[in-house]
Structures are given as C-alpha cells and as structure tokens.
C-alpha cells in the first residue's frame, strides 16, 4: 500500500494521540504497562506512518512488512498505534484487558488482525522475526521484518541465540529495534540512570536502593559492541527524534546481507512528567488524578 509521506508535524500529532490512548487505556483497565509503551511511541509512529508497507484492509497480505513486538507487555502502545493506522476501532480501545475484549493484556497472534505474534514472555520475538525473514527470502518476497525489543528482552538468552543465527543466515531483511530506556520491572537496568555517566560504582552486581527499586539489574553495556560482535549492522540513535529514527530505519532497510540493529536511547514514560524515568510506572496504571494530569500535559482536555 502506497503511503503519503507524513511530515514530522503530522507524526508528532499521531504520537500525541497515541500517548493519550496509552494513558486512557491503562487507566480504564486499572492495570497494564504505560512506561515502556510511552518510550516507544515515536518508533512505532515512524514505522506505521512513514516506513512500513502495510494495508489495514488486508492485514494478512503476504507481501506486507512485518512488525513483531517482542516486548509483549507494551500492548497499550501497539493497540493505540494500530487504531491510528486503521486496524482497531476506537470503541474497542477502552475494553483493553477486559473479559470479552479483542485486546488482551499481552499480544495474541492475529487478535486483532495486525498483531503478528503472541508475546509476553520476553526473549522470543527475534527468533520469530528471523523465521518470517527466512520465509520471505525463500519465497522471493521483498518484505522487511522489524522486531521491537526491550532492555529485558536483551537479557534473555534466546535473543542472543537469534542474534547469532540471523547474522549466520545473512538476514538483511531483518531489523531489530531496541527500546533502550534503561528501566525494567524492578528498577534500573544499569547504574547510569541514577548515578550519571561516570565510572561504575565500586561494587559488583545489582543492589536494592532505599526506595525499594533494584539498581544495576543487568548492565547491557557495551551494548553496540555486543550486537556488532554478533554480526549486526548497528547504530545508536535518539529514540524520540523522528528524523533520526527515519534515517536509521531507511538505512536498515537496504539489504546489505547483514541484519540491522538500531539501539534507541529513550526515556521510559516519555511525555508524562511523573512517569518519566520512574520504574513505578513500568506496570502500574494512572489513577483518576494522574490521568487528568497526564492528559493536561499531553494537551488534551480528556
């Protein structure tokens, strides 16, 4: 499906509406994962409205580009984006996580059409994406497969099994996008987010901070070097900058015989002040007052 190229201003409007629905959906469900949804908004907006070849009227089109969300808890983001792209009706959004809803708490393959893979247990998306990429090459189709991973995904061994295999199979039609927001369920992935970019503290391993969050859960750095060592064409970009995201995705689309990794430096909870860089909102919904504040900050009355 041909797409009119969207301007940055148009993308910013889509992103703002997606953020609104992320907080509305989690508020209505009284549960869900707003933090890691808000951190990837620009990535998905750029994919669905500028980069990917897809057709909401024909979600199983064999030649479509695939978007596989390995971080399966970021359903508010995926459903809100699929709504903007024409796959999901607005009325369904606020049924999120309820009995009988089309929109389960974690992704379910094909429910609704447009969701490529079941996820929720981390670490599985890149393997699935590689399988789809290999099938495309076998069938002579020129689609591209995009897989979105999280910090936590990058700690699962299976991700690195898949990383090794993708380079081994020269899967140039595969791109891994890592939402590197440095925060996960229990706290901070690495020490930088709360101690700055200086030298690592003089203590090994992870530890618990006075507020109960765990610090330095599993340091992924040097992250670029890991992906490069596994054979991936790797770059690190600012993950909320549409120009940077677009350029990286378009470069990655060139099949140079190497899979591409785009590490996106992002802010967890981006766009809602009290959620930004706050591990508490990895898996917690805003209450009534917090919803009102979030909507005000995003420029909406409701």
């Amino acid at each position, binding site marked *: 499906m041909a797409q009119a190229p969207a301007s940055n201003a148009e993308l910013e409007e889509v992103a703002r509406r997606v953020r609104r629905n992320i907080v509305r959906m989690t508020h209505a469900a009284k549960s869900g994962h707003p933090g890691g949804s808000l951190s990837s908004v620009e990535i998905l907006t750029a994919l669905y409205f500028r980069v990917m070849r897809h057709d909401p009227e024909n979600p199983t089109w064999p030649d479509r580009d695939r978007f596989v969300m390995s971080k399966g808890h970021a359903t508010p983001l995926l459903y809100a984006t699929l709504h903007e792209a024409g796959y999901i009706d607005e009325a369904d959004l606020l049924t999120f996580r309820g009995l009988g809803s089309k929109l389960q708490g974690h992704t379910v393959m094909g429910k609704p059409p447009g969701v490529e893979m079941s996820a929720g247990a981390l670490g*599985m998306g890149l*393997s*699935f994406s*590689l*399988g789809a990429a*290999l099938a495309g090459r076998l069938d002579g189709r020129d689609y591209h497969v995009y897989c979105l991973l999280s910090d936590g995904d990058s700690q699962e061994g*299976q991700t690195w099994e898949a990383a090794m*295999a993708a380079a081994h199979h020269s899967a140039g039609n595969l791109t891994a996008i890592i939402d590197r927001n440095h925060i996960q369920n229990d706290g901070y992935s690495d020490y930088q987010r709360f101690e700055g970019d200086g030298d690592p503290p003089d203590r090994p391993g992870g530890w618990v901070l006075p507020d109960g969050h765990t610090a330095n859960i599993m340091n992924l750095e040097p992250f670029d070097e890991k992906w490069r060592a596994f054979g991936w064409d790797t770059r690190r970009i600012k993950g909320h900058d549409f120009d940077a995201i677009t350029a990286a995705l378009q470069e990655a689309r060139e099949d140079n015989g190497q899979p591409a990794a785009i590490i996106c430096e992002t802010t967890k909870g981006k766009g809602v002040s009290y959620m930004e860089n706050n591990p508490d909102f990895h898996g917690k919904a805003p209450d009534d007052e917090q919803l009102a504040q979030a909507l005000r900050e995003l420029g909406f009355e409701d």
Partner: protein
Amino acid sequence: MVQTAADKATREVFGPTLAKLCREGLDIVCVDADLGYSTSAVKFGQEFPERFFAVGVAEQNMIGVAAGLASCGKVAFCSSFAVFAPGHCFDQLRMAVAQPGTNVKLFASHAGVVTGEDGASAEALEDLALMLSMPTFNVLFPADAVECEQAIEAAARTDGPFYIRAMRPKTPIIFDESYRFELGVWPVLREGKDVTLIACGELVKAALDAAEALSGQGVEARVLNASSLRPFDKDALLAAARETGAIVTAEDHFIHGGLGGLVAAALAAAAPTPVDFVGMERYGTSGTWKQLLEHFDLTPEAITRAAGNAVSRKSRSA
C-alpha cells in the same frame, strides 16, 4: 501384522519422509539444532538445502524460528532429542506454538529409557507429560518405523501443532505396508475379552507378546495401539473398559503424566475400571536398551503380571 522387515529405528524415517512430502508439493521447511544427523533431518537438508535452516545448539531459537516460518505459510518441522526439545524450550512451545496454534511440528528422538548407554540425563521420561499438558498439541508416539512414517505424513497434512516422539534404537517392525495410522484412533491389534493392554511406542510389541503369553494361560487380552495420545480414542478406551472390564497401560515414560495418567483420568470420569500400570517411576541409567527394558520392568512379563493384577481386581469387584 507379520514381522518380515529388518529392525529399524523410528527416527530413521524422519528426513526421508519430509523429503518425500516436499517432492509431492508440500511447502515443508526444517529447522535444525545440530542433531540432524541423529534425527535423520539431514536427509531432507541434502535434497532441499534452501529449505533446511541450521541454527546451532539453540533449541529455544529453533522453535521461535519455526513459528515465524509457519506464520508465513510454511509447514515448519524441527527436530532434536526429547530431553532438549521440549526439555529446553517449553515456554517457546507454549507461547509461540501451542497458544496461537502455529503450524509447527516437533520431531523428538531419543525418547525413553531405551536411549540406553548415554544414561539418565539423555533419557527423556517427562516429554509426553510436558506436551500433553498443552491442549492444542497433537501428540504421537509411533510403535515402529512403518507407523512413524505415516504419523509424520499425517502431521504434515494436518494444520496445527504436532509432537512426534521417536526412539534411538533399531526396534522390531511390527506393521506391514497395509497398516494405516489414523489420527485419534487406537487400532485393535488383537482381539480379546478378558483384559485390554494399551501400549505406545516400543512397548506395543511387548504388549502383543504379553497377549500371546496370557492366551496360553487362558486369558484373552485385547491389545490397543495408543500411538495417538492426543487426540486419543475415547470410544476405543470406553469400549475396552465395558467389554473387557480390566485395563493395563504400558509406556517407556513416567506413568504420571503419560499414557497411564491419561487413561486413568479418562476412565475415572466415564467408566471406573481396574487399571494396572507398566512404566517408569524413577530416573534411568546407562546400559543397552534391551538391558534397560529388563532392568526397569518394561517387558512382556511385567505386562502379563499387570494384567493378572487388573483381572484379579475385576473379579473382586464383580
């Protein structure tokens, strides 16, 4: 059912059968985790190299890649040893295959204590329990190489998740080419009215031998081949309970979670019947496969004794 052919391992037919089906036009691919020589997957890879994907010793990735291939319309087979798949990759089988119902077929060899000399760590005795725990998986354990070839073809031609359990040693061929495997059917291999012996895998042959011995003692045993563990043949099971009044199950797997557990649960709900169980109840060890069958009491004699127990309980309750 005349034994004429030479002994053959069920794993030997995997790759050749995939190649045959691919030649016939099925859109088959095969993902391999460095055991393709042992599972015979390489026989497929030699003929269809572009459809054979080696992923190294990485069973979790193998299942994920297979699910991705299946999502694009492929009949996605993969193979390993049963201790590694499902052993290493239950979560991947659950979320990427069982829940969405992707068209992935796992062929797992080296199942059971008959794996032999490699010892306890190599002898999968829990794999059927893992696979039967997921309601969308079809679970097959063919009795010989003839049946195994047909089971692979049924899996390839039926959409959805399949698990096929296979064995390392060359075991006797008990079926001739007229045998027809059918999904969800437990064929009657021998008629009898006094007790029913329900077996799977290599113990089907042991059950047939036990029935012969029982006949000499004046006990006529029916023998059912429970190669299709899911779907299982509830009609055949309930008919056996009704018509023979006593049941014995026999399997090279832990009884709990395997064929014994399946039969006991089905009978408890629909037709309480005396049942006795032949199977594994502790971990294995090293030895030749024939020694191990003797050592762990997976023999015609054990099945004959179990039949006596079941029949004696029948007469007490009558």
